[in-house]
């Protein structure tokens, strides 16, 4: 199967890490920035690294941006440059354009230009951080829709030692357990203690919920509020 090709325009912290992580997933990555030092630094990790002006249509065309399956535009400091670059990439006919936004207005303009995905990492991380601070027993949260979430939650005390069937999570809390995670104490070959994680991906009705278990549950936002206590 042909490897997917990505172009990352703008190699600040976000763009740089997106490029490196894509390479780790065995993707082909063209990394572009106007700073030669940054390009030099990333060149040994990516398929190709180029010093180029993202607002120069000819330079982007010559770089082969149009041949990429997806382009990530992560120009942080200058919104004008980011928008102009987005326009050029769209006009080159790239199928999937992802933009790192730095403000609500930046996102709005990107949407008008037909960007496929807008990410706003600062906002998303801030929201996640607040969730973690306010709800410490919710370890992860994925919004499935406006009303439904998938969350990783520490098993509430009331259901410790009960089987899933007898725990009443469905009736009392209105949620479904779709996986269970445990931390198991181990002693390695050197006599060193450690913990390993075990995931039960298909918990059955007779599986017991132990103290300290982490449950992956799906349910309505209202139900999940009840579960997290």
């Amino acid at each position: 199967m042909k490897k997917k090709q990505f172009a990352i325009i703008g190699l600040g912290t976000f763009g740089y890490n997106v490029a490196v992580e894509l390479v780790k997933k065995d993707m082909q990555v063209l990394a572009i920035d106007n700073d030669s030092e940054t390009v030099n630094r990333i060149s040994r990790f990516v398929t190709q690294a180029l010093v180029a002006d993202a607002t120069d249509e000819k330079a982007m065309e010559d770089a082969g941006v149009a041949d990429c399956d997806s382009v990530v535009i992560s120009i942080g400091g200058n919104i004008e440059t980011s928008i102009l670059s987005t326009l050029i990439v769209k006009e080159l006919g790239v199928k999937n354009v992802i933009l790192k936004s730095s403000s609500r207005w930046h996102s709005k303009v990107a949407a008008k230009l037909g960007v496929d995905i807008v990410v706003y990492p600062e906002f998303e991380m801030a929201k996640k951080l607040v969730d973690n601070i306010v709800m410490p027993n919710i370890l992860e949260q994925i919004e499935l829709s406006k009303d439904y979430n998938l969350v990783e939650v520490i098993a509430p005390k009331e259901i410790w030692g009960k089987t899933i069937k007898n725990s009443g999570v469905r009736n009392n809390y209105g949620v479904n357990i779709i996986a269970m995670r445990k931390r198991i104490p181990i002693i390695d070959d050197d006599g060193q203690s450690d913990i390993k994680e075990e995931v039960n991906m298909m918990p059955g009705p007779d599986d017991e919920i132990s103290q300290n278990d982490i449950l992956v549950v799906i349910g309505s936002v209202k139900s999940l509020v009840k579960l997290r206590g």
Partner: protein
Amino acid sequence: MSNDIKNTVSNEANHIELGKFYFLNNKYDEAVSEFKKVLEINPGNAEAYYNIGLIKESSNQMDEAREMYSKALTVKPDYKIVRVRLNKLIGIKS
């Protein structure tokens, strides 16, 4: 080695082993109690702090786990496995 020192070392090691045994058998309270005895004998025993940290992490008490791992690293800064666990806990990739 004098007998007193021998006994101290032996007690410290015994409590560590007993603590690990309890930990392995999910008897966390008993395990913590053994590791605390180690720290009473030798407040500079990094392994005891590390093991208490592991128990706290297994019990989803992450603040306490972080504190214990940090103490272990204060005593023994090159304690690699503790560094890995602490980094994982605070979200730093090792």
